[in-house]
């Protein structure tokens, strides 16, 4: 997070006007928008406190091009050229741009195709890179007329525009979204979570899947989700990104990777790391 961000949080909080909010979706499942809608009554209450001026799931109005947003929330991946244009336009018209969810923050499941599995290892393909990768095989497996399909290596939002804040996870937690919007309304500083999922899992007393012999990235993934996957006995695959900037985080990452490498086939570890894109952050 940067100084410009805090500057705007201060300004926004000081204004006595309602915050103007836009919620946008690029190519994705729109699950993060539904996580917001699923708040039900709580969402309707929030809608009274802010001006939601663009949320296409809820309204029909077309908006004048020069409309300005205090905060734009953007979910999904800029897969098409049109997506990329929209994203740049949103950036231009917004004071703060918040990446909403795992696709926007880390490329989401869409970036699985960015990895190539040649010769046992896998290496990241550079966004911009023209190397023939797995993704060209993938598009041919799906479409007969593949040459008409836009098939870029899927970027994160911050590889295309400047992103001020990130709400991670696939999908986001509606409650976390609420907390952040209320903090913005009140001009409170936003904090990124630094504790790992593992701690939240232990606090809640869920069974440790790592001990049970499954690949779980909970020890090296940012918390804030309440270890929701573990509550359903689904191991953590790192959709909130890797822990960083906290004491001992480097060591924790090294330890876990060491443990996994000793106990599991390399391919299986890579699959888990690739699924939500934490692999890129692990280097």
């Amino acid at each position, binding site marked *: 997070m940067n100084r410009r961000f805090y500057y705007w949080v201060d300004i926004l909080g000081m204004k006595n006007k309602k915050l103007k909010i836009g919620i946008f979706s690029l190519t994705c499942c729109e699950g993060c928008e539904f996580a917001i809608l699923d708040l039900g009554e709580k969402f309707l209450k929030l809608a009274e406190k802010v001006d939601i001026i663009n949320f296409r799931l809820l309204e029909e109005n077309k908006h004048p091009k020069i409309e300005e947003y205090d905060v734009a929330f953007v979910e999904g991946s800029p897969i098409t050229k049109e997506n990329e244009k929209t994203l740049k336009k949103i950036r231009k018209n917004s004071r703060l741009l918040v990446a909403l969810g795992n696709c926007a923050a880390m490329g989401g499941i869409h970036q699985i195709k960015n990895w190539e599995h040649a010769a046992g290892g896998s290496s990241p393909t550079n966004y911009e890179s023209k190397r023939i990768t797995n993704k060209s095989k*993938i598009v041919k497996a799906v479409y007969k*007329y593949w040459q008409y399909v836009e098939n870029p290596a899927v970027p994160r939002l911050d590889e295309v525009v400047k992103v001020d804040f990130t709400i991670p996870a696939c999908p986001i937690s509606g409650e976390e979204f609420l907390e952040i919007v209320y903090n913005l309304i009140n001009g409170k500083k936003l904090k990124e979570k630094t504790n790992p999922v593992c701690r939240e899992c232990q606090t809640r007393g869920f069974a440790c899947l790592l001990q049970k012999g499954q690949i779980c990235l909970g020890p090296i993934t940012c918390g804030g989700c309440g270890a929701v996957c573990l509550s359903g006995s689904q191991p953590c695959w790192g959709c909130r990104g890797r822990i960083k900037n906290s004491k001992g985080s480097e060591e924790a990452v090294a330890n876990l990777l060491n443990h996994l490498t000793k106990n599991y086939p390399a391919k*299986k570890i890579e699959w888990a790391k690739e*699924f939500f894109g934490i692999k890129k952050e692990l280097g």
Partner: protein
Amino acid sequence: MSLNHAKLDAKKRESMRISINHIAKTEGHFSFEGALFNGDIARAKIITLEGARLIEGMLVGRPYYEAPILTSRICGICPIVHMLTSIKAIEKAFGVKVSEQTIILRKILENAQIIHSHALHLFFLSGPDFFPPKADPPLAENFSNDLKFIKKFPKETAIAVRLRDYALNIVKIISARAVHNLTPEVGGFKKLPDKQKLQKSLNEIDKAIADAESLIKFFAKLKYPHFQRKTNFACLSSDLPAKALASAEALAKEGLAKNKEYSIYDGDICLTSPASNCHSPIKSGNPVKKTVIPLADFFKHFKEEEFPKEMVKRAKFDLSPVALAKGEGKVYMIGAIARINNNFKFLNEKSKKAWKQFADKPPIYNSFYNVAAQAVECLELLLQIEKDLKILIKKPAAPAAVSFKIKAGKGLGAVEAPRGTLYHYYELDKNGIIKKCQIITPTAQFLNNLEDDLKEYLPKTKKMSAKEREQKLKTLIRAYDPCIACATH
């Protein structure tokens, strides 16, 4: 006249062009383009604008257990049905027989998924369209923003939100999260739900049923545009295929046919077509020709079509596999209206009665009534949930999942999604690595039918103002509840 002249002439005569960009209040991005020639010959095209995510291709070379988790992320509103359909397909490929407890839990989960999707679509996405724009002040215009619509109908909003919350709560109890569910897996569940929480939901179901009934009353009061077009309907059904029917008596004696109900989680494919020719008047209760195709024969009768620059592979069917292979497939309709038309006799008496508030006995050929069918399904599926919860709570708990052997195989799975039948097909190698994946979504199946409806409906709008015409066309499109995110995947 040469062909070129004819084309030029057609261009001159073209009296009206209609295009609607980025139709809001649906899932995914798409536009409509239409034209009327001489006021009666119409052209209508849905242009999808969603980027291709290549989910089917991504799964190739990856392990089977990722398929339910990855495919559920095709859609944020119907993740459960993708998850369950992919699980069923893989179980078919491995030859896994799951426990009765697993089947009941999955049925409850899928029914709850349909209810919360319907409640959202009915009240927030499609409902506001049905308020006549002639009212003063013009309502439809005012309600283009749902937050305003909500203020006008606080009581009904509370009911719709409550019904949605009730279903979402069941989803959370069984699958640990509302969007992108966690517990279902090949073989059963990763974790069983808390029975006490389910008991609590059961205790509150009467109120949810009353809410569904109020919602039906509210939607029965709306004005549905006069419009009819004969078409074919397809959905899963408890009706038996002809081959099995030959020994239906034997089956009945064995008690195999006793669990017949309005199909959502399982069934063979029931297809109905108008029995009379297309020019005879449409009356309620018109005879239909019914064919039940065994699920295993799906690929013989259904086919996806590909065109350059089209990211959605639209599906067609034909009873004759030979005709289908030649590209002569027929257009068909699926979803709530197809299920009500094909499976009306399997509805609970209460739901049958509720349908009478909208129309007489099916078949009904007016696609605007898909909204009515969704309202009635909310009630029907709650009644099914009530029945299933009672059975589940009484039963002693069985293991969460059965163990199975990974082996090479092929499998097709089908489940009714809110918008129609969803099909997943997988080919797996001996290590459980996916070799092929094919997903046929509801919207990809009904887009052709939607365009045919729009072509037929367009001439009826020629006397309307441009604004009213656009509103009416959007009403028809949204009544289908299209999900372009699913269709493109």
